[in-house]
């Protein structure tokens, strides 16, 4: 049963992702992106990563998409809202991209030797009560240093926005 849903959601994700890059209208591309994000969120739910799914919907489908829409609204003039389609210089990137795709596909299909981390997550989730709890536990103990670093990265990004966007009258 879950296998069928996996196939449905993956197909939706892939098709809409292709639509994102192929569509002519910039705004349409963004709407297709929403579909991609949502179906990816569904895949996360099926993998028991509920927190990640929620973040995917809240941050990507919510905040990032709004940001894109605002960026288009505020910057581009009307005639520039369509993306130029096929032209000769694109052939090389397309060929390389297709080649790379096939390499990755062959790689995944022939030697499925991913180890990753299996097992301990489910046990920990049942111990602490859920996805977000396990994440929080790790973020504030083992991974406290990356957590603090990320906060400084965000601060730097804010400083950057202020420095580059706000012009002082001097």
């Amino acid at each position, binding site marked *: 049963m879950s296998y069928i849903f996996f196939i449905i959601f993956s197909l939706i994700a892939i098709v809409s992702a292709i639509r994102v890059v192929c569509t002519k209208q910039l705004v349409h591309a963004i709407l297709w992106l929403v579909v991609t994000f949502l179906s990816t969120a569904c895949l996360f739910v099926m993998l028991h990563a509920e927190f990640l799914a929620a973040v995917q919907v809240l941050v990507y489908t919510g905040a990032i998409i709004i940001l894109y829409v605002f960026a288009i609204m505020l910057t581009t003039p009307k005639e520039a809202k369509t993306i130029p389609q096929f032209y000769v210089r694109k052939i090389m990137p397309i060929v390389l991209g297709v080649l790379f795709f096939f390499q990755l596909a062959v790689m995944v299909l022939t030697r499925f030797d*991913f180890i990753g981390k299996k097992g301990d997550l489910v046990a920990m989730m049942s111990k602490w009560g859920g996805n977000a709890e396990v994440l929080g536990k790790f973020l504030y103990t083992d991974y406290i240093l990356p957590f603090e670093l990320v906060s400084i*990265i965000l601060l730097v990004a804010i400083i950057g926005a202020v420095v580059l966007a706000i012009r002082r009258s001097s």
Partner: protein
Amino acid sequence: MNTAQLWTDTLYLLPEIIIALTGLLALVWDFISPESVKKSRLALFSLFGIMLAAVFCFMQAGLDKQIFSNLLAVDYFAVVYKIILLVTAGMVILMSMNYLKVQDTQRGEYYVLILFSTLGMMVMAAATNFISMYLGLELTAISCYILCGFMIKDKASNESAIKYFILGLFASAILVYGISLIYGVCGSLNFSQIQQALSRPGGNSGVVLLTGMVMLIVGFGFKMAVVPFHMWMPDVYEGAPTPVTAFMSIGPKVACFAVALRFFPIAAYALRVQWGFIFAILAAITITLANFHALRQESVKRMLAYSGISHVGYALIGLVATTVDRQIGLMSVIVYFLVYFTANVGAFGVIVLLCQKGRMGEKFDDFKGLGKRSPFAAMLMTIFMLSLLGIPPTGGFLAKVWVFAAAVKADYMWLAVIGVINAIISAYYYLRVTVMMYMHDPEEQSSLSFTPALAVALYIMAFFTLYMGVFPGSFFELAKKSVIALL
């Protein structure tokens, strides 16, 4: 990890914490102080923080610990690299005090960004895990994007920031993709656990692993500006404010190399045939192509950008040599960067000195007659150029000899030959600066204003460039100790 462990680990992190606190305090200070307060005070404050962090770094020498659940290492190798990075940051701040005044963009955030960028590089130099490595890389990169576009009224500066930003994001994406593949195969992001996974029987083959490794090399190659991935660099370096260029031509490269030295010869030693081959080819084309581009430049800043690319190529020769003899190879890279960073910071410092109101001082023509206008500046520039070229008694000679010797010892004779030929070709553009300074008449007569800060920076760099050439013993000892800590 319990709380007591957390506190002891925090103590080992003191240099980084000091830099972060200095940055935060400088930010607040800049915000609350009235406009009339001189920004040079902020620069001195940042400098003080950097010196304090360097002192604590020195105190960590000789330790060998893994902190924060194996995310960072505190060892001799990290200390040496952190000192290089801190000294670079300090010199860049000294240079900037002059530059920002001349360019009339005195804003406190500049020093804050330099500090945070240095913090990111220090984390990279100590990282033994891909998570901490990547976060350090991003912190460094994001600060550098902003610093590139810091002169918001200058078109070239804006262009440089946008180019760096967009291409840098691609590089990061490729890097992270590669890391994810390696994680998939090895089951860990920790370098020592990756090493164990790769040394299992049959653990060092497979398409997934190799694809991940190649993507990792592409990502690093981009950040270090190795040749097929160097396209962004000359424009970015030319457009960015000169002290920032000096900073970027050392910091991110040195930090990336620190990670590469921790990862490739140690953790991925089982894959040495594969990455050794890739890096050997990259090194050869990097040195050659960058050299030929440098020959045709009319701007000294752009020439130094290309020369920086070729120097990364020389350092890559040392990395390739680690496939056979790890100690010699690693030592040669460390010595190479010790030498390269002093000469390079110094050369950019002289460009900053030439930068006057309405004249950027970046062209070869601007160096005409410098020998008459300011004999001292000309002498310093000559020392830096000779060191970059690799002529005794400067440090550059020893650095090049070591790298080539390592290559010969590792049976990469052809690589050493390519390196030597290119070193000879590079004489043209390095000595061209000297010719301009001494054999042409000055175009303008105005004397140069040596500010104390800039003078101090230039003297220190020139002193170390010569000192390393004449008394290299202590620096070899330094490199040797850090390599032993690594192996």
